[in-house]
């Protein structure tokens, strides 16, 4: 049986540095939910000296999607007879009355797809039915929603729409910058956007490191972050250069700029953040499910006992929520941070907290 824990010398040095770090105390927020889960799955918190604290931030698109959005998606399926296509994560997120999973149980046509283009393809194959894709996500997923609209125009479809709740990461950085000493920036977001946003944060005096997703990439990024923090000067470092470039992906950015525009957006647990969302431009309103089906606005109602908002902003740990692990579990989630596979509460629960 293999059991050699072979590690490269630089990785070994990075781990030794993080374990023995004795400089000023530092709080690092991993903004991205995928980072949070990988950190737990790999047990990376065990490698950190007591002087280093990791905080889980709001970077899970499912967690910050408000109950009102789920309500509108449920209404599309049950009241308007629309086939609702969604990423799997959203299925069990509670709305005010019910989740999409429950809506399916009540006869709504709700389907899990892996990409917006799959929903567009379904619409092309079934011109007799209306389809809506639940366009939820950050900069990583927004371009593929725009691509689906692009294809719907190409294919002359009149039965495909998006229900948008797309959000942008810089708004989260701005909202969270006082909750942390520095950020672990999400690599796949900056693969699309490039480094302009993190440079801007540095100019505002906020430091951070762009990190990849393997254990080695996360450990390396953390070691760089802690080391540079000790120098006392605001900085940014791209520790994921094999994927992230200065300019990002011009094609993806152009696609988004063609079809979408910034808008104010409601973040579950945090509230309204100006210019933090993306919606379809007026010229493409026929692809906007909210416009087409005249879906009423409304932020929905979350469980009042749920502390998701504080968890998302790094103000409390999941275990500090009175519902955690008792009323709220992955099987019966009360809040989005527990239901999402990228949520902080789900990570704490599944991996048994900080072992």
């Amino acid at each position, binding site marked *: 049986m293999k059991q050699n824990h072979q590690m490269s010398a630089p990785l070994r040095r990075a781990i030794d540095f993080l374990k023995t770090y004795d400089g000023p105390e530092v709080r690092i927020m991993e903004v991205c939910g995928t980072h949070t889960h990988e950190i737990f799955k790999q*047990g990376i918190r065990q490698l950190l000296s007591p002087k280093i604290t990791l905080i889980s931030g709001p970077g899970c698109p499912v967690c910050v999607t408000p109950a009102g959005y789920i309500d509108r998606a449920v209404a599309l399926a049950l009241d308007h007879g629309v086939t609702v296509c969604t990423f799997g994560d959203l299925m069990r997120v509670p709305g005010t009355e019910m989740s999409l999973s429950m809506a399916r149980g009540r006869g709504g046509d709700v389907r899990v797809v892996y990409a917006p283009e799959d929903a567009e393809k379904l619409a092309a194959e079934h011109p007799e039915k209306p389809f809506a894709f639940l366009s939820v996500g950050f900069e*990583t997923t927004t371009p593929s929603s725009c691509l689906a609209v692009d294809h719907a125009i190409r294919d002359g479809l009149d039965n495909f729409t998006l229900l948008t709740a797309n959000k942008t990461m810089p708004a989260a950085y701005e909202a969270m910058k006082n909750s942390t000493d520095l950020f672990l920036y999400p690599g796949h977001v900056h693969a699309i956007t490039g480094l302009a946003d993190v440079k801007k944060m540095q100019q505002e005096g906020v430091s951070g490191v762009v990190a990849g997703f393997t254990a080695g990439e996360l450990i390396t990024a953390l070691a760089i972050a802690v080391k540079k923090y000790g120098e006392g000067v605001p900085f940014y470092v791209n520790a994921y250069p094999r994927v992230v470039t200065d300019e990002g992906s011009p094609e993806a950015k152009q696609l988004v700029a063609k079809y979408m525009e910034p808008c104010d957006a409601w973040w579950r647990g945090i509230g309204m953040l100006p210019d933090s969302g993306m919606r379809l431009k007026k010229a493409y309103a026929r692809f906007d499910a909210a416009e087409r089906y005249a879906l009423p606005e409304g932020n929905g109602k979350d469980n009042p006992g749920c502390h998701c908002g504080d968890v998302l902003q790094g103000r409390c740990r999941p275990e500090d929520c009175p519902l955690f692990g008792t009323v709220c579990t*992955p099987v019966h989630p009360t809040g989005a941070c527990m239901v999402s596979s990228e949520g902080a509460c789900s990570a704490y629960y*599944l991996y048994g907290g900080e072992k």
Partner: protein
Amino acid sequence: MEALPEQITLAHGAGGKQTSALIHQIFERHFKNSLLTADDAAVLPRPGHQIAMSTDGFVVSPAFFPGGNIGELSICGTVNDLSCMGAKPLYLTCSFIIEEGLEVSKLDRIAASMAETAEKAGAVLVAGDTKVVGKGQADQVFITTTGVGEIVSQNPLSGAKAAPGDAVLVTGDVGRHGCAVLLSRDEYGIDAHVESDCAPLWKPVSAALKAAPDLHVIRDATRGGVGTVLYEIAHQSHVGIRLHSDAIPVDPSVAGVCGMLGLEPLYLACEGRMVMIVPKEEAGAIIDALSVFPDTQGICQIGEVTAEEPERVIMETEIGTQTYLPEPGTELLPRIC
């Protein structure tokens, strides 16, 4: 005798000439043996030992997937359930719920692979039933199989017998069946080819029982995969299980697909993999004995049973940390990014 049309109709389930034609031309032709008669029940020689009995329903969609089909699966599932109890599979029955419109050629392929798989396991199909339901009331075909086996292991096997110090073995790479079925649904537009591990395992299990007479636990890692089975054993035996992540065999294509969809191979179904828990001094003998069978040549040790942290499965990571393997509890859903 009535000739079979290209597709199943409701008349094939009505009990008349067409039912008779279906039974003779498909099931009897493939399942032929001296115990399978036209009478109301099979008359079976009584085995000399205790018998084990198991039943299972199969509703996989799609019915045909890379590396197998629902018929092969229906035999493997029941044969392997019997094998896990140290029982040599002897007799099988099968019940078909067929959707009107199913192509007869598909049913023929399903029956042929059932006969072939049963023969590989050393069992015979002795009785069956056919029902045809209207279009839309089933998904092509559902099959239920029931099996009777003769207990041949010296010591009873049970999920409650794992003991601290035991070795935890898995008989090959994990998660292939679940991944193959997921890909064959073609919902995710992922261009990868993964074949199911579907296989009847009585022969390797029989060899394991001879090589390691004190084998404690054998479980097939079907729905819920290896991770779920390990938690079941940890609960049943009230022990901890420690895994070494770098020892868990995963096919690179399966790992790639799981990475893209945010799934964990340890929770994907296997249909030809066993988890075996055995005193550590017998682990080498089992690995040697099973390495010669094509379906279990990937057998390896992935961890050990511990007295610490009862009912938890601990993962030792490749960076030297320890985490808990999350206990599965909900439906697997691909994540957003």
